């Protein structure tokens, strides 16, 4: 019982840590590219509104980056403190992949973020553009390596197990494992959608509190346009990813669908209360045959059910059903909410593009065209990307249970023998710290938005702690 408690608490603790961590890379990955876009538009047009947008959002980038770094350090220690069995069993494969992630993240952080954040007024323009581009490229590269490792844990190949330890046989197969391309694309799109709603939501907030600057218009349009373009791509990619999961981890798809018995003509459940004791659903509401059509593209396609994944003694070899079933629905629901809102916004902005006299002529979209309720709806959606990303993350990660590395090791094989009360105590402390930091993070973004709406900073380049650094560098330049 003691071991079980430690296992469960360690899992909750790891989930809490990684859930907190993933929020910030999700912002920085795409925000790096969006900042590059702002920076290039400024370089190309010389229009100050793009530089104002860069200066505002680079602060959010710096804050998110710092949050990501410190919570990332926590992650790298958690492997040893809570899950020593993981690296002992698959370290020969996970090691190099993690090493490349650390090396790329480290390299970028040390090398280019400094110039991006502090160098805006003191290095030549081309160098600043280059630094911004390299940071964007680097966060993407870092994402690539960590997704490679994560995907390999879901769909491992290119290894052999000798005496219980995995050894690499083909690095090509390890890196280009079957689920990697889908997972990477899904994550990149998730990051872009998170950022598009973040910039649109914060800009809508500035607009409704009376900020009519050209910067706000430009950023709001950028955010809504990215969202409207990428949401259909994400739905398509999510479907492809689902089919790939069906091929390699059918038990996960069965849990997502809440489908107990495999068979044809499976309905798509909109609502249900899966009950693992009874091994059936209560209160099912579903669309007949729809799951078969989505997964097999035939109304009578045979969809796998959870009862296919039982050991001879009846022990389930499938993930816990309710969390996977529900987090999947939260992800999809949020996604469709994002689709509806972003398309409605584009529609109104396009329809009313020429209603405004003079300078509005020829504009392809006008922020003025957005009805008030739509603007207000965008504000709470600023963090909708986080909700969808976390829900998707839970779907895929809880959906992997009881495996830690599919077919190689189960989660309980990796857990450290640490007393349960100690894990519980540290878990509660982590949760308290993370909750406070999240409140502070959202609070600071709201504060920065209000301050910008009031007329911005007295000093145009008062970015974070660079004030004093400027003095130092000016001194050095003399």
């Amino acid at each position: 019982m003691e071991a079980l408690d430690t296992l469960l608490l360690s899992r909750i603790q790891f989930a809490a840590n990684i859930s907190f961590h993933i929020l910030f890379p999700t912002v920085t990955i795409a925000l790096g590219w969006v900042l590059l876009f702002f920076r290039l538009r400024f370089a190309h047009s010389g229009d100050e509104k793009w530089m104002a947008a860069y200066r505002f959002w680079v602060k959010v980038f710096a804050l998110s980056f710092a949050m990501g770094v410190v919570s990332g350090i926590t992650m790298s220690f958690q492997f040893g403190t809570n899950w020593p069995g993981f690296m002992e069993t698959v370290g020969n494969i996970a090691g190099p992949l993690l090493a490349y992630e650390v090396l790329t993240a480290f390299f970028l952080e040390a090398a280019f973020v400094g110039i991006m954040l502090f160098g805006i007024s003191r290095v030549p323009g081309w160098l600043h553009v280059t630094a911004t581009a390299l940071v964007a490229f680097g966060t993407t590269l870092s994402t690539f390596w960590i997704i490679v490792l994560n995907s390999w844990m879901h769909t491992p190949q290119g290894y052999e197990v000798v005496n219980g330890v995995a050894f690499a046989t083909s690095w090509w197969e390890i890196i280009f494992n079957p689920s990697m391309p889908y997972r990477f694309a899904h994550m990149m799109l998730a990051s872009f959608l998170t950022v598009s709603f973040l910039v649109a939501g914060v800009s809508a907030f500035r607009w409704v509190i009376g900020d009519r600057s050209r910067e706000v218009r430009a950023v709001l349009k950028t955010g809504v346009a990215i969202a409207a373009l990428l949401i259909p791509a994400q739905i398509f990619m999510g479907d492809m990813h689902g089919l790939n999961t069906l091929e390699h981890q059918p038990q996960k798809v069965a849990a997502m669908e809440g489908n107990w018995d495999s068979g044809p003509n499976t309905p798509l459940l909109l609502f249900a209360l899966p009950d693992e004791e009874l091994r059936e659903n209560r209160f099912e509401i579903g669309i007949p045959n729809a799951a078969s059509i989505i997964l097999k593209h035939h109304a009578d396609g045979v969809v796998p059910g959870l009862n296919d994944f039982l050991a001879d003694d009846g022990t389930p070899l499938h993930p816990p059903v309710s969390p996977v079933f529900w987090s999947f629905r939260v992800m999809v629901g949020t996604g469709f909410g994002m689709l509806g809102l972003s398309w409605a916004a584009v529609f109104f902005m396009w329809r009313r593009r020429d209603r405004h006299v003079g300078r509005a002529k020829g504009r392809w979209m006008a922020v003025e065209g957005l009805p008030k309720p739509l603007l207000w709806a965008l504000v709470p959606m600023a963090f909708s990307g986080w909700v969808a990303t976390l829900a998707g993350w839970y779907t895929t990660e809880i959906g992997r249970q009881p495996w830690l590395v599919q077919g190689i090791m189960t989660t309980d094989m990796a857990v450290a023998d640490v007393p349960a009360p100690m894990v519980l105590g540290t878990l509660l402390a982590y949760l308290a710290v993370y909750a406070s930091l999240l409140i502070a993070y959202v609070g600071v973004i709201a504060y920065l938005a209000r301050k910008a709406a009031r007329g911005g900073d007295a000093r145009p380049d008062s970015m974070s702690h660079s004030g004093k650094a400027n003095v130092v560098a000016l001194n050095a330049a003399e």
Partner: protein
Amino acid sequence: MPDFSNPANWLPWAFASLMGLSILVYVVLDGFDLGIGILFPLAEPDEQERMIGSIGPFWDANETWLVLAVGLLLVAFPTAHGIILSTLYLPVFLMLIGLILRGVAFEFRAKVRSRRKALWNRLFFVGSLVTALAQGFMLGLYIMGLVQTPATYLFAALCSVFLAVGYSFIGATWLIHKTVEGLQSKAVKWARHSLWAVIAGIGAVSLATPLVSDRIYDKWFTYPEILWLVPLPFISGVMVVALWWMLQRMPFAGDRWNWLPFATSSAIFAAAYLGLAYSFYPYVVPNRLTIYEAASAPESLMIILVGACFVVPAIIGYSILAYVVFRGKAADLRYD
């Protein structure tokens, strides 16, 4: 020395060296900025801004040496990583909380409305102090062979105090270099007052290490090894005396030699660290697991090494560049 004809022999050694280098660089670099965090409440608000200014462009990169060190331990010696970190569960947890609070305090204190700033300043201090204490505790317990008894805890507690004050010392010497006038005089005073911890800390570790382990005792006190080991404590002693002499008289006329205390204290840290590394080699978990037993498969290590050969020199190159670009006083320029 390892056998260079066989990758299975020299790869673990190469990774242990690389990891050792990262830890040393980390201790010196994050040491001075953690130390400045610990000294923070002793300064006036405008001095605090200058203290932050003196580490602002560097602390982030300094901290990433810890990521590299732990990353190398994780990927090159996975078994050792598990044993060490699950033994040090609580101090690691405290250090992480400290690092989180401190790292975000940099960003938050510069962005929040002014009445919240005092809170983030306090968290900056608390985070720095907790991080330093936790690291000292881990160092102490590691030296005691990761054995957990009341006596080893006492030693670890002593080490944690010594390391925290030692970090303040190296932080103060950094400030002597980066500041002028009032704050510089304060920094000299802080350095003078904390030099004792460096002496006591190195002394305690040097005495305890050979006493706890017969193996380490034999490594140090056998002929002829002792002949080329003796200079290490001797040079350290000379450097400590030189520091003490300097700090009585600083700042010198025209602010000359203001970098010397920091350089000397870095050298003392490095010498003490080399002594420790010599004592524990080839063990990565003291007396239990050697780097050769704990190492990942040679093929995996080789792949990491290729990446490291590109990235580590680039990191070192950039770090040097950053220190050159941001050289000079972290203060208002009219004094220069």
